């Protein structure tokens, strides 16, 4: 009993820190999401109204919220597979025995991850420029008419996805490369002796051996991509026609531009609930498949 008491004393500092800086703000935000906290309430707390779940109801009937939600889903549904595919391809190339200058390419492909988003966004805005952009210049050689990348509501999100994938694929690439390097050569040799082609070895050796890592990478990427914010913030400010407003961008505007902190907290909880449901599912399935 006494030893247990001592143990509590040892974890107490960490618990206090977690309680004060994590649990308390979460509950405060939950409480705030049930009020209409805004600048009037900031002036005088007597102007604060308890509104129950009305913030949530109102959000669910706000077209822009659904549009933001749809935009975010679009970004995740297209961006995550493309991003992981790009990471996997890059990792396979780097892992290939035929590759030269591996160190250089590894650094070069990882470089976008560590560059400043705002700085590279300026460059990408030029690449995407309708009239002078390199992208349209290249497409022009293929006979494709110039695309108004950031001005056309149909193209703005693909442009953002392209930019985000370029910016982020290097991170997963490094994780997957480590995974590839940990697959013992014996499996490949055995498959080779059995007469498996390269494609067969990839499907029957590489993918199964990599699957725990792929699940981890997918969950991290899904959770990360749902928090899309900085890319549209610096590239399009949510436009054109609000086609690049993400849930987090919507929350930022509600909370920090219009100071409707009650409503912004409600957005945060809705997003949290959704991302939790979406990422807990594959994790649980993975746990069932590979019991620890």
């Amino acid at each position: 009993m006494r030893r247990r008491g001592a143990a509590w004393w040892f974890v107490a500092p960490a618990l206090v820190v977690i309680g004060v800086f994590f649990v308390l703000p979460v509950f405060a935000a939950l409480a705030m999401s049930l009020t209409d906290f805004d600048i009037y309430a900031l002036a005088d707390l007597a102007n604060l109204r308890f509104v129950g779940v009305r913030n949530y109801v109102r959000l669910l009937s706000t077209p822009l919220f659904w549009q933001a939600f749809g935009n975010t889903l679009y970004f995740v549904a297209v961006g995550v597979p493309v991003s992981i595919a790009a990471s996997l391809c890059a990792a396979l190339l780097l892992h290939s025995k035929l590759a030269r200058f591996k160190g250089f390419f590894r650094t070069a492909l990882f470089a976008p991850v560590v560059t400043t988003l705002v700085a590279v966004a300026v460059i990408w805005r030029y690449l995407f420029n309708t009239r002078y952009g390199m992208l349209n210049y290249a497409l022009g050689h293929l006979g494709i008419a110039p695309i108004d990348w950031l001005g056309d509501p149909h193209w703005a999100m693909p442009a953002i996805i392209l930019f985000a994938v370029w910016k982020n694929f290097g991170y997963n690439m490094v994780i997957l490369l480590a995974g590839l390097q940990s697959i013992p050569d014996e499996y490949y040799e055995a498959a080779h002796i059995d007469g498996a082609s390269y494609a067969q070895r990839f499907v029957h050796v590489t993918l199964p051996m990599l699957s725990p890592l792929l699940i981890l990478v997918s969950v991290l990427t899904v959770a990360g991509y749902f928090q899309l914010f900085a890319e549209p913030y610096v590239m399009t400010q949510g436009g054109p026609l609000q086609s690049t407003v993400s849930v987090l961008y919507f929350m930022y505007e509600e909370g920090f531009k219009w100071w409707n902190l009650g409503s912004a907290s409600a957005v945060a909880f809705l997003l949290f609930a959704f991302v939790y449901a979406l990422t807990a599912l594959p994790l649980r399935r993975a746990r069932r498949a590979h019991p620890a």
Partner: protein
Amino acid sequence: MGVAVACSAPADETVVRFWAMGREGEVVTEVVRDFERSHPGIRVEVQQLPWTAAHEKLLTAFAGASTPDVCQLGNTWIPEFAALDALEPLDARVAASATIRPGDYFPGIWDTNVVGGVLQGVPWYVDTRLLFYRRDLVARAGFDAPPRSWADWQRTMVAVKEAAGPDRYAILLPLNEPEPLVALALQQPAPLLRDDGQWGNFRSEGFSRALQFYVDIFRQGLAPPLTNADISNVWNEFGRGYFAFYVSGPWNIGEFKRRLPADRQQSWMTAPLPGPDGPGASIAGGSSLVVFRASRHKAAAWALVEYLSQPAVQQRFHALTGDLPPRRSAWAEGSLADDVYARAFRDQLERVKPAPKVPEWERIATEIRTVTERVVHGDLTVDEAAAELDARADRVLEKRRWMLARERAR
């Protein structure tokens, strides 16, 4: 101990904390040094805020009871800080002041500082939107003077577009800027919000006319449906003749002087904003100087505001920043009186109107922008847009109505 002594001010010195934004914050220290020399015993601590972070920082400072003594505040933010009751009313101080005479100020600008009948700030510099245009392109289209009325403007733009060909346009109205449309709407007799700013008034005949005029410019192909993000360099494009008209503010006088090549300098000019029939109104923008209610050095803070409001100091400030002074007497002599590009602004400033003075206005202006963008892209008609705007404005103003109703009940 030695550090503590070095940092603390002498007992008889008053320290005024002054927050200023952007470019003004960078150069105001120079002006402030002269103030300190003429006011021994007062030291001014200037803190510079970037515009993008200023609003949040000020609200945070208010929540944390650490607001400065004097602050530069965008005119459209004044109603918000007035609603917070954060600002010191200045009516009595102005009435007793020898330097600040309200009659010398452009009336529309002064008006932006009066919220609920109380003076909340003193205009520091002004900002409005009017026409920048290419004289040569307008002349080539067969016009020797800038347009004065909407009908003139329309005719000129059609002719300019015809002379320019398919890849060039008559005017640039970036879709992410609501100000040009708001300026056109302010020219109308109907207010943008009704009943003390409690409801949207966008279904009024006046707003519909302004929106129709604005949208027709795009429908007739006179303006490209672009945002600022799509135009990588607006000054270059203006120099190249991608468009001949541009509705913008005073900061672009300096930018065009600096960025256009020497052989283009003769070919651009400014003109007052055309109105429905003859020169019309435009938005009263800019920044004011406010004293915070929580300040413990209000007399010294007010002395700084008075100093910065002197016509001579305002002229000097204009020379440093290019900002336009809000007092007529500051325009009467000096470099400003001879500046041909500023002349149209001098004229326009006599006809500026404040946007509705409610804390929610910036949000409503954003709704105007997003709804207008949809009209330009053809998703909504003008009437549908007006109804949609009223619905959105009414929703944004719900809390304000509740507050006013509660005040009346008391």
